[in-house]
């Protein structure tokens, strides 16, 4: 019966969540420019001393904000993202050969993650044709128009930030902190959600749930942001 109970009640501690994240883990994260990165999980990963991560997400945050805290402290060996412009340390590490960076156009990256999340093999996109972004990519013609074959992305572990969660893992987000989070939540083989507020089952409006709990494996209580925003 324990398995059944665990599938219904996914509440856990930060420590339990961290047992799923090791040196070398492929880790996907929600968030956009720091907004919507899960602060408690990032801090936990830092504290645990995990290294050699392969990170997948929109960007490298800022040096001391969000996922950028892992990047600038050299916890990642590789990053798949759409830009690293807001984190100069990431650029420096890349130039020094300490961080491998693979770029995808932002909308393509979002769709590749979503494709992984819904079990597709990939998507066909015409964005980037005629630029170096098409290099090394297979092309295919649909109705006489050329498209790039963009493979789906998944990860061993996905970490997301939500406004509210229930014990089944149903999630709602907060304003623009939604961004990549619902996509990333679907694309993890093991998805950990950090929520500002954990509410009883049945309390979230079924019409407004953005991520159905079936995609989520674990829910932890957020301790909130422990960094200063760029605009503060």
């Amino acid at each position, binding site marked *: 019966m324990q*398995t*059944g109970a665990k599938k219904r009640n996914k509440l856990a501690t930060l420590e339990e969540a961290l047992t799923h994240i090791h040196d070398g883990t492929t880790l996907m994260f929600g968030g956009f420019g720091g907004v919507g990165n899960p602060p408690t999980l990032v801090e936990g990963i830092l504290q645990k001393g995990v290294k050699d991560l392969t990170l997948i997400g929109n960007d490298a945050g800022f040096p001391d904000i969000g996922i950028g805290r892992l990047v600038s402290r050299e916890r990642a060996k590789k990053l798949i993202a759409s830009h690293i412009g807001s984190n100069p340390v990431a650029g420096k590490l890349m130039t020094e050969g300490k961080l491998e960076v693979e770029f995808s156009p932002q909308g393509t990256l979002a769709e590749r993650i979503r494709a992984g999340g*819904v079990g597709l093999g990939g998507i066909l996109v015409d964005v980037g044709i005629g630029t170096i972004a098409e290099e090394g990519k297979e092309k295919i013609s649909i109705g006489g128009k050329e498209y790039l074959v963009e493979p789906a992305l998944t990860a061993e572990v996905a970490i997301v930030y939500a406004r509210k969660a229930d014990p089944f893992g*149903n999630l709602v987000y907060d304003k623009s902190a939604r961004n990549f989070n619902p996509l990333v939540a679907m694309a993890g083989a093991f998805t950990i959600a950090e929520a500002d507020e954990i509410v009883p089952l049945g309390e979230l409006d*079924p019409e407004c*749930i953005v991520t*159905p*709990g*079936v*995609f989520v494996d674990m829910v932890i209580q957020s301790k909130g942001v422990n960094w200063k925003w760029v605009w503060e």
Partner: protein
Amino acid sequence: MGVGVESRNRIAQRAAKEIKDGMIVNLGIGIPTLVANYIPEEVHVMFHAENGILGTGPSPAPGEEDPNLCNAGGYPVTLQPGASYFDSAVAFGMIRRGYLDITILGALEVSEKGDLANWIVPGKRVPGMGGAMELAQKAKKVIVLMNHVNKQGKSKILKQCTLPLTAKEAVDLIITDMAVMEVTKDGLLLKEVMSPYTVEDVIQHTEAELILADRVTRL
């Protein structure tokens, strides 16, 4: 498919035993719909409807139906706590990602390798595959509920399907009015026989090769 009420209920009751606490389950139309009636109260299940609900509850009382709250078969349902609505793309995302623990479907034919045919009878009936291909190909466990033989008395459990397939090597368990059979690497394992039938009856009405379990249970 011409199975009597009692037999349909017995098949559904047997199928319900496969459903364990905490599972995510999709029930097809026909006999599979009846399975929900036989799940014990202490077994909490999230039912998935591929039109876009996770967590459907029992049928509403007459007069309480909401036309906009229906299962994939078009019949009114209710909601369980923790349920959510989503679009059909997300509904199938769940399926393709393998989050369905069990899907229970009807079939026209099943082969001893677990091939499933249930969407087209060329030149006769072409209803289309609906969501059956995804469900059969992607659910962790695929259970087929059907009559053991067709209207002509011929076995629907074959060495090879004659109809176009819904999915190859997809079925895990077959429950009919005569027997319960598991698709294994070695072939079709006869595990249980429904009374009043005997093991011999089942063998006689099954075109596919059957392996007898060490102990065939009589139900």
